[in-house]
């Protein structure tokens, strides 16, 4: 079973997944070097890369990204040592065709938790 779904749809699994959290915080350092941290929380972030997708597969994923927010679920997340699920907004970049014989592309995407 594929661990990663987008909008509860089984997709071609990415070749690289990097799950992380943006820390919503600022440190202030005093003249003597003392530190004070103001923190409001954290937001999930995932960087995905597919090498390679057919143009149809790429289009399916890009359509989900373009439709608005996307529900990301990974049941084998290394970030949580379990399931990572969040709703986010995606930005992505698709490569040119890689060969004249096949219509394969590389797709890189980042999903930021809303």
């Amino acid at each position, binding site marked *: 079973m594929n661990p990663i779904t987008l909008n509860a749809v089984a997709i071609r699994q990415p070749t690289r997944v990097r799950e992380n959290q943006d820390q*919503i915080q*600022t440190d202030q350092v*005093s003249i*003597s070097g003392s530190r004070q941290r*103001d923190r409001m929380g954290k937001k999930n972030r995932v960087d995905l890369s597919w090498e390679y997708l057919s143009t149809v597969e790429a289009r399916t994923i890009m359509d989900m990204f373009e439709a608005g927010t996307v529900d990301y679920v990974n049941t084998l997340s290394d970030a949580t040592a379990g399931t990572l699920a969040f709703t986010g907004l995606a930005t992505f970049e698709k490569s040119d065709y890689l060969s004249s014989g096949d219509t394969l592309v590389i797709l890189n995407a980042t999903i930021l938790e809303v």
Partner: protein
Amino acid sequence: MQAVSMNFSTETAANYREPQFGVLISWLKNIDPSTTFFQLDHSHLDGNDKLKGVESSVSFFDRYDYINESQYVDSFRITKKVSSRPWGVITAQADVVLNNASKRFMPGYDPIIGGNIVRDRPIKLSVGFNGEFINLFTGYTERPINTVTNRKTVLQCFDAMSYLSNKKSSLGTMINMRANEIIEELLIEQGFTSSQFNIEESIQQPIGYFMPKDRIVTEMIQELCEAEGALAFVDEQGIIQWWNRLHFIYNQTTQWSFDYDNTAGIEWDTTSIINDVSVNARPLKPAAYNKMFELADASDETMIPPGGSKDIFAEFRDDEGEFVAISVTDPVYVSSNVGTSVYSTNLSIDGSGAAGNAFITLDSTYNFGSKYRMTFSNSGTQPIYITNIQLYGQPAKVTAVSSLPQRDQTSIDEYGLNPDDGGSTIVIENNLVQDVTSANALGYMLVRFFSNPLARLTLNNFAVPQVQIGDSINITIPDTAESYDSQVMGYTIAMDYPAKLTQQLNLEQRTLQTYFQLDHSQLDGADRLAL
């Protein structure tokens, strides 16, 4: 320092904090009759309770029904600063940037608030820790600025002092009232209740004559501040404060301390040197009922045309110049002087004809203060002259007040005469200064505070949101082993992404003094007699 719980104070000083902020806007400006108020340690911002003023009072702004727009806020920045003189009216300003990606703040877009994205919306900004919030700003928005390209809505906001700067008074003459009583009357007229302002007692004598009618409220408060050496501002809860010139002296208990461990940057400067001041005034003082005006001769200006009417103005002047009439007895026709307000009439300009008084009526009068208008009408068929007018009433006359020269010769020898003010004596002219003692005190205060350069520091400190204007702050400089007792003369506090709560304090060193207080001080003790 704003009243906060022990938990809040502990959180403020902690190395790890989780600040929260709130932005409440009353777009619809609806009054909420069922308002309940936020309590420290009991309420949360997302609950139904409202942030209100100090515990015992409900501010002018608390009556509105607010919408919590915190989730749309990109940043806010609040600035409040006293001018270089320790008196006057301070207005706080806040700049709020809202994220408008959802188009919520685009005029006409949102079905509920879209028609109300306009100016003069009540707004409150707050910050808190662990769900416990304090207000940082209470005021009104200016015109919202929307940009489609970067999807931001920018609100520039000002506090209630700005609200009062658009309001004119309709109150009539005030006689022998203290400055604090005058300010209270002005605020009550504008809809504030007594729990919505905190006006300290005036230090000087009652003001003999004060005419608020048709004058801007803030301008009058500014004038009263200068005459008293007082400060007026709206605090973080929307309560109007008026501090007399002894406020700083009686409030010197250190409320927070900074050193290199909780300060990211310190900038030094010094206060302007003031070592020679004089204060002049020409206050109006009520005098006894007396004759204030006499028109001895008729002229074309006093001719009332047949079947018509004419305004005749009396201007009140004496050897000291213009004075004002507190009250005027309307003149009546008599053929000879009887010691009260009268007028005489005649068909001839030289008074040689018949009186013709049966055709003349005094239709109306109006007292402008220094002028008095009489409207006469003539029902006859010939021109009739007003040949004499005598007006009696109670005047308020000018009394010249000049302070003794307030000078620090040692400072002049060391730094020159007022080196930061062009090298000449600073002359303060304010006709609400009522007596020489007050004039002397005003000059003395300036020279006493500023004849020697005192440290003026700008701190970029670990933010302490509860700090207010006038708070006593101690700063230790380890490099020089010096410690400054100072007072907060201004601040900027800002919240930016990501969780960036920053504060800059403008501090001025104060020479700590104790002043003689009845029932507290002994005459041979160390306390000074306050002026």
